[in-house]
Structures are given as structure tokens and as C-alpha cells.
């Protein structure tokens, strides 16, 4: 057998296996049931417009707060970890190890329930506020490490050049090192942002008022009242509607940055 014939045969066999698997799945699934349980158009329509005006809006607002807060706190932590002053370094390292090692759900629980009991203090913004503080704390632990790696990836020569021009070290960090660092870490930061969008679904553990519900809590609620899983599918679609354009935008930004270098 010629080698090209053999290759074509193998390829053909692989296609056949693929088609057979797809066919099997299609034949085995109970499509009528799937349609009535997960893709009921009337139920889907019933979740509008609240799923956009309340649930998706809250998901986006929560993510924005958690990400911006996490970015600020993460930057401080990263600088602390790179600080020549030892206690700062220890503090930052301990913080990062602690909150990176704990599940976000437990941290949210701690801030919603344990902190008020221990200190007789309620975080601002009610239960959602308590959950958001927890999300900021968790995300800052990850973001700090990402920023630190970005700062360390900026070539030493850049700092040396800036300092030899007479800039002090703080000014060098702000105008020379950090812009380059953030350019380098755009992809992992995007990742963190997308993870945060999904982590807002954990806020339900803190208890949610009607107007505070984000996509997941909202759809679980609708699942109960409609006794149909379609709202979960609608929520899933909403998550994708939020994340996909976002990642596209960042990819575009990244290409733009590369050209700028």
C-alpha cells in the first residue's frame, strides 16, 4: 500500500469514528425531554427583562467592584512583596498564601457571618457588600502574584536607564516599570477577570435580597418558581454574552500592545 493511501485510509477511519460518536450521542439523547426541560421558550421569555436589568447588571457591577478593588489591593501587595523592608514582605507573603489557599466560598462565608459575630461590625452594602469584600480579598491575592511577576519581567536595564536619567525609584516604578509590567500581564489579568465573573455566583451563600441577585441566584430562583431548568440555560448564555466580547476585546488590546512595542 502506498504511504499516501494508508494515510488517507487512517484519516477516513478517524472521520468515521467521529461521525459515529456524534450520531450515537444524537440518537441516545432524549431530545423531546431536553427541549421541554432545558429549552422551553416560554419559560426563557418569562425571565426577561429582569435577567438583564437585575441579574446580568448585578453580575457585571459585582465583577467590576471586585476586580478594581482586587487590582488596587493586589498592586499594594505586589509592591510590599518586593519591598526591601522585611516585615512588609512577610505580611504580603502570608496574606497571599492564606487567601490563595482558601476556597472563595469559605472566605465569603467568613465575611458574611464570622466577621459580624466576632466584631459586631457589618460590612457596608449588606450581605452582597460582605461577599464583595471577600471577593476583593481573594482576587487581590492572585493578582498580587501576577503583578509581581510582571514587574520582575521588566528588563533591569529599563530601571538602570531611568535612574541614570535622574528619576527617583518611585517615579521610575510608576512611569517606566508598571506600564510595561501591565502590558506583559494583560493575558493573566484577563483570566483573573473571567474567573471573577464566575465567582460572583458564589455570593448566594451570603444571602441575597431580591434586587441583589446575580445571574446564578436569579436563575436558581427562576428554576424553583418555573419548575424548569430553562432559566439555568438562559443564565449560561448570559455569562457567555458577557465573557466572550470581553475576551475578544482584550485579545484586540493585546495585539495593539504588541504592535506598540
Amino acid at each position, binding site marked *: 500500500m502506498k504511504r499516501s493511501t494508508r494515510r488517507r485510509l487512517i484519516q477516513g477511519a478517524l472521520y468515521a469514528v467521529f461521525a459515529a460518536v456524534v450520531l450515537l450521542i444524537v440518537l441516545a439523547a432524549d431530545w423531546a425531554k431536553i427541549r421541554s426541560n432545558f429549552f422551553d421558550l416560554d419559560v426563557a421569555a418569562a425571565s426577561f427583562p429582569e435577567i438583564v436589568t437585575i441579574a446580568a447588571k448585578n453580575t457585571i457591577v459585582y465583577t467590576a467592584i471586585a476586580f478594581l478593588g482586587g487590582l488596587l489591593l493586589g498592586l499594594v501587595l505586589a509592591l510590599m512583596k518586593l519591598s526591601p523592608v522585611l516585615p512588609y514582605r512577610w505580611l504580603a507573603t502570608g496574606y497571599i498564601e492564606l487567601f490563595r489557599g482558601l476556597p472563595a466560598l469559605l472566605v465569603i462565608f467568613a465575611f*458574611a457571618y464570622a466577621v*459580624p459575630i466576632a466584631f*459586631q461590625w457589618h460590612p457596608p452594602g*449588606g450581605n452582597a457588600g460582605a461577599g464583595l469584600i471577600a471577593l476583593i480579598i481573594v482576587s487581590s491575592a492572585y493578582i498580587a502574584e501576577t503583578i509581581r511577576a510582571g514587574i520582575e519581567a521588566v528588563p533591569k536595564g529599563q530601571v538602570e536607564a531611568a535612574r541614570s536619567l535622574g528619576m527617583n525609584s518611585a517615579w521610575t516604578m510608576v512611569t517606566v516599570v508598571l506600564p510595561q509590567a501591565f502590558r506583559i500581564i494583560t493575558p493573566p489579568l484577563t483570566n483573573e477577570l473571567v474567573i471573577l465573573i464566575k465567582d460572583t455566583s458564589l455570593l448566594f451563600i451570603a444571602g441575597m435580597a431580591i434586587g441583589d*441577585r446575580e445571574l446564578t*441566584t436569579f436563575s*436558581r430562583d427562576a428554576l*424553583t418558581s418555573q*419548575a424548569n431548568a430553562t432559566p439555568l440555560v438562559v443564565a449560561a448564555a448570559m455569562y457567555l454574552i458577557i465573557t466572550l466580547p470581553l475576551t475578544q476585546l482584550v485579545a484586540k488590546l493585546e495585539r495593539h500592545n504588541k504592535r506598540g512595542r
Partner: protein
Amino acid sequence: MLAALAAGALALSACGGGSDDAGSGSAEESGLNLVSEGSLTVCSDIPYPPFEFEENGEYTGFDMDIMKEIASGLDLELAVQDVEFNGLQSGAVLAARQCDIGASAVTITEERKANLAFSDPYYDSLQSLLVPADSDIASIDDLAGKQVGVQQGTTGETYATENAPEAEIVQFPSDAEMYAAIQAGNVDALLQDLPVNLGHTEDGSFTIAEEFKTDEQYGFIMAKEGSDELVAAVNEQLTALRDNGKYQEIYDSYFAQ
């Protein structure tokens, strides 16, 4: 090594064949269309004391004890799975055949009957309002502007929404979070089934402000389709338990005043 593997594979396939045979065989016998032949697979949202909770590594409680009796009456092993109430009461868990029956303090309602098959009622329930002992909330009319914790998807939530329209309703996934929330002062009151709230009054920090007669009854839930025989068998067992005094015995061990 190879021999061991081969033996293992043989044993596995033998097991598979065996259980298959047993499955179809006893399915014809029992006719109960069970998820796993030979055992009654029960789904429950645990913990929800005194109906279901863990003690010494075992699930127990009023629902669980009744289930134990029903399973042994049907000559079946009892297998308990901890699931989320939301999925259970919407019928999704049962439709997906994760378990045969749900025993989770589920109130019988007309809405739920659209997606579930209920057994005969096995418990008369009251709703109630739990408040801190030093609270000035004395009844459901004092709830305007206050935060009331409810469990998502329960009849307590429905009752609160309908009867305390000016209260801020806060949804929680289960009683565990609700109780933590009222301890933390995140909510001013909890509205849910009386026996569960009663459990929270034991240390004296909380008290029942009001009880609500809602004519609610609990039923065991089964899949809407294909469980007619199981429903009949469970009802038969329930009647037997009431007749032989076993039901009262279990009832008294949890609810005797």
C-alpha cells in the same frame, strides 16, 4: 501482573453481568422501577434538623427514621444522598433519576404536584417567625422595613412574600446559612417551618414570635412519571407504620413536648 489484571477484569465483568441480571430479575419482582435495584435511594437536603441531620456518621432525623422503616418494610437497603433542596422540590433531581424518593420536609402544594408525585401526607407543619429574644418584633405585622431570612424555594418564602410585603426578603440556600445570618445580625427574623425554628430557640437567644397555621402537610416526593407502583408501596408502608404504632414512636422521639 498481567494475570492479576485479567482476573480483575474478569471479576469486574462478572460483577457487571451479575448485577444486570439481578437488576432485571428483581425489577420484575418488585416492579418498583428503582434507580438501583435492591436499595431505596433517598435524596434529602441535609442538614434540616429535626427532620434530617447527621449524627455519629449516620443520617438520622424524623424523615430518615420513617424512610428506614419504609425501606425495611419493602425489603430494601436504604441509601441516602445529600442534595440541594431547590433541585429536589422542582423535580429535577427525581426526573434525572438520581434517586427514587425525596424525603426532605417537602410541603405538599398544588404547584409542586405539577412536577412531582407525592405520597400521603406524613406530617402536619406550621410556619413560624423566629426573632432574637430581645427583639421588638412581636408578629408578622412588625416586619415592615426589616430583613427576613427565608430559604429559597420554600413555602416559608412564599408565605413571607405574600404576608409581609413591606419586609425585605433575603434568600438563603439552606437553614445552616439562615441561622448563621440571624446570629450575625444580618437579618432581623427567620420565617420557616416551626420545628426547625424551634430547634434554634433551645439556647435562649432566639424565640418564636408567631406561629402560622397554613394547613401545610409534608409528603415524600417521587418522580412524576413511572413511579405509580412506588407511590402505592410507600403509602401502604406509611399506613402500616401508623397502624402498628411505629409512626407514633418515631414522632414522639422528635416532637414530644
